[in-house]
């Protein structure tokens, strides 16, 4: 398992742009969006950097849902990955290693960004509540990695998985108010946005930061864990070596 983890980690690091996207892109996009929309956030309580610092971290986390698909089925490594099935390594270790690698890599990169933002006071993460924000972020990343893996092993195509995930992420991001407040788009859109799980997560994060606590924190945390577990069950059921030969 350790050999597999190390190997998947190396493959992920070699993936085009993964380091840039998860380590540097959050800072870049927060600074850019914060600067562009600074005039729209005049309140002393919430600056544009506070808003986009939080939303962009979660948005990049959502973008990370394409990474497990690549680690499972990317053209350059797909055949070599299949070869692992010939070895005495268990099927469970193969898929767990990939999901765990993605979770650790994305989780670490985004947490690092979050801590740096907090340390230099660029973004408000709720003072001591930052630990709860980090735990929620990590739980969210685990859910996304499991979701991506479940879709990948079900449709068995990296391209289709990436199309499904990219489009879903873009749709959910827009209608969850990650880029712009959806209330400005009318009551109907605002109502639709309430259905999005991303909106629930973002609302919980902002409640943690600005209200000091969130009544839904526990439910969201447990809900994400249960969903991750169910998605892992799908992966376990659907990930069969014979589908890849």
């Amino acid at each position, binding site marked *: 398992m350790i050999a597999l983890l190390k190997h998947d980690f190396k493959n992920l690091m070699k993936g085009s742009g993964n380091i840039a996207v998860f380590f540097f892109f959050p800072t870049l996009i927060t600074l850019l969006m914060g600067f562009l929309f600074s005039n729209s956030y005049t309140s002393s309580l919430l600056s544009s950097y506070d808003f986009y610092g939080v939303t962009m971290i979660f948005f990049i986390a959502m973008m990370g849902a394409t990474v497990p698909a690549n680690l499972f089925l990317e053209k350059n490594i797909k055949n070599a990955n299949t070869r692992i099935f010939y070895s005495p390594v268990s099927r469970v270790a193969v898929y767990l290693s990939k999901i765990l690698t993605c979770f650790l890599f994305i989780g670490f990169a985004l947490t690092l960004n979050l801590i740096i933002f907090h340390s230099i006071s660029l973004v408000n993460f709720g003072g001591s509540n930052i630990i709860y924000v980090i735990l929620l972020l990590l739980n969210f990343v685990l859910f996304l990695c499991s979701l991506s893996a479940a879709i990948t092993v079900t449709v068995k195509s990296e391209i289709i998985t990436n199309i499904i995930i990219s489009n879903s992420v873009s749709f959910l991001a827009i209608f969850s108010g990650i880029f712009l407040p959806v209330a400005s788009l009318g009551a109907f859109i605002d109502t639709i946005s309430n259905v999005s799980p991303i909106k629930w997560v973002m609302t919980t994060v902002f409640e943690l930061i600005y209200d000091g606590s969130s009544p839904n924190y526990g439910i969201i945390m447990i809900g994400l864990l249960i969903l991750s577990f169910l998605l892992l069950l799908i992966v376990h059921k659907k990930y069969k070596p014979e589908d890849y*030969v």
Partner: protein
Amino acid sequence: MKKIMEVKNLTKKYGDFTAVDDLSLHLNEGEILGLLGPNGAGKSTTINILSTILKSDTGEITVFGLPYEKNIKVIKERMGIVPQEIALYEEISAYKNVEFFASLYNVKKAELHEKTLNALEFVGLLEHKDDKPKTFSGGMKRRLNIACALAHEPDLLILDEPTVGIDPQSRNHILRSLKKLQQQGKSIIYTTHYMEEVAEIADRIIIIDHGNKIAEGTLKDLLAEYRNTIKYTFYLDKINKDILTSLENIKGVEKLKQEENILTITLSKEQANLDKIILTLVNHECKIEKMETQEGNLEMVFLELTGRKLRD
């Protein structure tokens, strides 16, 4: 002779299509068994089942004397599989590729380096150990593909068409290497649709078509029936019943086969009456546009058994 692998009544279906049909075979210790068949004959499906990656619908497999289903992990540890596809990580060095795959077979850390180097040396890639496969030629990739299956020193090696699309030098290197492995006591199953390869290295040959075993034996056994015959194929401008009757009466003609204006005549070597055949055709005012000769070989055996060529 001790049997390393025994397969009984193996069947694998995909919907209505039967890829492997009641196939039985065995592999003796230290033997090279050639599985010969055209594309789509069921060789790869058989290999995927034998290499534990695919489940059969029915059948019984014993490897190293152990029932296959209950001992998959132990069996896998002693097997090396060379898949038909080149299964390498293009972005890491040849050394890292071999080392990684060997590490999955519980090779002790202290031995990993040495075994990795041995495998690379064995396939003639030691001086390229730090190069990435993406810079390799097709032949070098094929050899590295084999090295990745060798480093953990398996007792049983299964190779699925390991020489597809490579240059003659690399092919010869691979075939020589397999003979060397056999001398070291390894048992090998080698699938191919190149008859000259099995003729060169296999101790025993199984011919497969449509998932069935249609012939089995040593090269000598398989050729025995056809050794004394020679086959002529004539491309004519016309063929009629009179011509066929006249040809049938020539001494030594064992078989006539007509496909439009192509006439195939199987003739006994002892009665080499080619001159009489040509004379008969000329007397019937047939124009011979082309003529091909084929002496008893594995290709001929296969053609006789299946009615199609190996590369069909």
